[in-house]
């Protein structure tokens, strides 16, 4: 019964791992894996001597870590706010609406935001009321990274808050009552009762998310970026895509991809290890 899953995984997951060898070759599709000449670390030396690469690496890192920070903080605050709502229907409506963007693809979200963020779009119309000149959010290097962070947070903060809401629901209600009777105000109760109650969840997610410091959001950037913002918007994944698929520089692109996935692998092993040791986290 396991055979179909096994075959699918082997062909589509493990065979490409073998294909990584072309990062150490001058790969020529006509010669194939075995016929292409070996060049050792040529492509890696080439990458590290390319000034663009440094830039792309930092773009990736900055976009990914900014998203990580905001998606760590905003969902917690949002969950705390939701938890205080006494009016059940209101809570439910807010949840329904804020979770929805998570289910829209980046193409759809791209279509929406490319329109509303354009110079003629509704956002610039709104800013115009305050006398602000139109801002080309998706076409200027000054705003592109910020726009990526905001649209990512827009899509994910509601969905990401679910885990925190679940953790908050698990906090012992007797503790709130005791704190209330002791005279603790709402914010002190949040800080001294709710936060300690959910801190394990917070730390666990923080640790697990750390392995994504180079995941800046491939699909999102691919949808939003254009040649005017390559300087700030180009990330490792989009670089691999352009070099490999569009310009057929197979070996170079594979080397860049391998560089990224090795860092990712090391971080996953470390963070999962830490989460397992300290918090007893396990997947299966």
């Amino acid at each position, binding site marked *: 019964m396991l055979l179909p899953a096994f075959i699918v995984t082997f062909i589509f997951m493990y065979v490409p791992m073998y294909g990584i060898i072309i990062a150490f070759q001058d790969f020529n599709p006509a010669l194939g894996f075995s016929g292409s000449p070996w060049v050792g670390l040529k492509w890696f030396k080439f990458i590290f001597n390319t000034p663009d690469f440094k830039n792309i690496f930092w773009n990736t890192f900055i976009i990914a870590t900014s998203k990580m920070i905001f998606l760590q903080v905003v969902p917690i605050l949002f969950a705390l706010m939701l938890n205080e709502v006494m009016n059940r229907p209101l809570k439910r409506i807010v949840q329904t609406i804020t979770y929805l963007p998570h289910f829209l693809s980046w193409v*759809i979200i791209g279509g*929406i935001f490319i329109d509303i963020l354009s110079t003629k779009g509704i956002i610039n119309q709104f800013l115009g009321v305050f006398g602000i000149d139109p801002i080309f959010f998706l076409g200027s290097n000054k705003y592109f990274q910020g726009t990526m962070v905001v649209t990512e947070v827009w899509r994910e903060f509601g969905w990401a808050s679910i885990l925190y809401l679940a953790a908050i629901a698990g906090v012992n209600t007797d503790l709130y009552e005791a704190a209330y009777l002791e005279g603790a105000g709402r914010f002190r109760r949040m800080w001294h009762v709710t936060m300690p109650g959910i801190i394990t969840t917070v730390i666990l997610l923080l640790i697990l998310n750390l392995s994504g410091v180079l995941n800046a959001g491939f699909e999102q950037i691919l949808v939003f970026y254009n040649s005017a913002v390559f300087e700030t918007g180009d990330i490792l994944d989009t670089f691999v895509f352009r070099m490999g698929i569009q310009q057929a520089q197979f070996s170079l692109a594979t080397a860049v991809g391998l560089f990224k996935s090795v860092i990712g692998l090391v971080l996953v092993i470390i963070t999962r290890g830490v989460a397992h040791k300290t918090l007893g986290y396990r997947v299966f």
Partner: protein
Amino acid sequence: MINMNRRKTAKLFQIINSFALVFIAALCFLPLWHIVSLSLSDKSAIAANQVTLLPVGFQLSSYIHIMGDASFMRAFLVSTGRVVVGTFLSMLVLILAAYPLSMEKEKFFGRDVIMWILYIPTFFGGGLIPSYLLMSSLGLINNPWVLVIGSGLFSITGAILLMNFFRNVPKSISEAAAIDGAGHFQMLVRIFIPLSKACISTLVLFAVVGTWNEWFSGTIFLNDRKWYPLQTYLYGKLNTQIDFVNMTKEELERVSQLSDRSLRAAQIIVSTIPILILYPFVQKHFVGGIIVGSVKE
């Protein structure tokens, strides 16, 4: 006295907090709503920046144009077919895998090793280019089957969810069935699947939504627009102008009354409608969905 004050500030807090949350929800909802309004507004109103929250110069011609646009409707059908075939095949593979994986390792020699083999690709892979070269050597470039196969037929995270569900099936039931002579297949079909309907429907819903939304494999593996699913089709249109060359005279006339922003907006809405229809059902399965999406326990 202190209590009175407390109650007052509590009430004030409730009001401020509720307003803040309504504001946040509006930030999530209004962009989508604005696009709906654009899709229903006429050209001059859009050009004059009159459209904000309600359609101005109400018209349905954007939608009428889409319905008559053969390539858009074809992409819609390709997406639908892909969702049906893709979901069916991936669920088949997943259910078949979850059953043996749910057994204890005493009963199934090598279970842990197989589990690891299936799990490792979630955090390390060959990457984009080797996958592309593989697809090309399998003859899957420009082949519509790549839409089903290319984005992964088997998800171990889904299998882990179902596996945990299978483990909660009471031992007494499966043991009784084994005594009655039921083989593994019978056991799976007659007992495990019917008892895991809740979990399986979660997996089906998330597979449907995920497949409908997937656009990247169409973008890289297909050159021929004939087999573009809707989301890939839309991706290709995002940064390009509307194509006036291949239109009939009637279409041109209709389009001249239309703003390309309104047309694009209508395309976005039509591509989103299936998700909106499924959303109320998806809502019931959020918790399971989080696990499918992000491997936790």
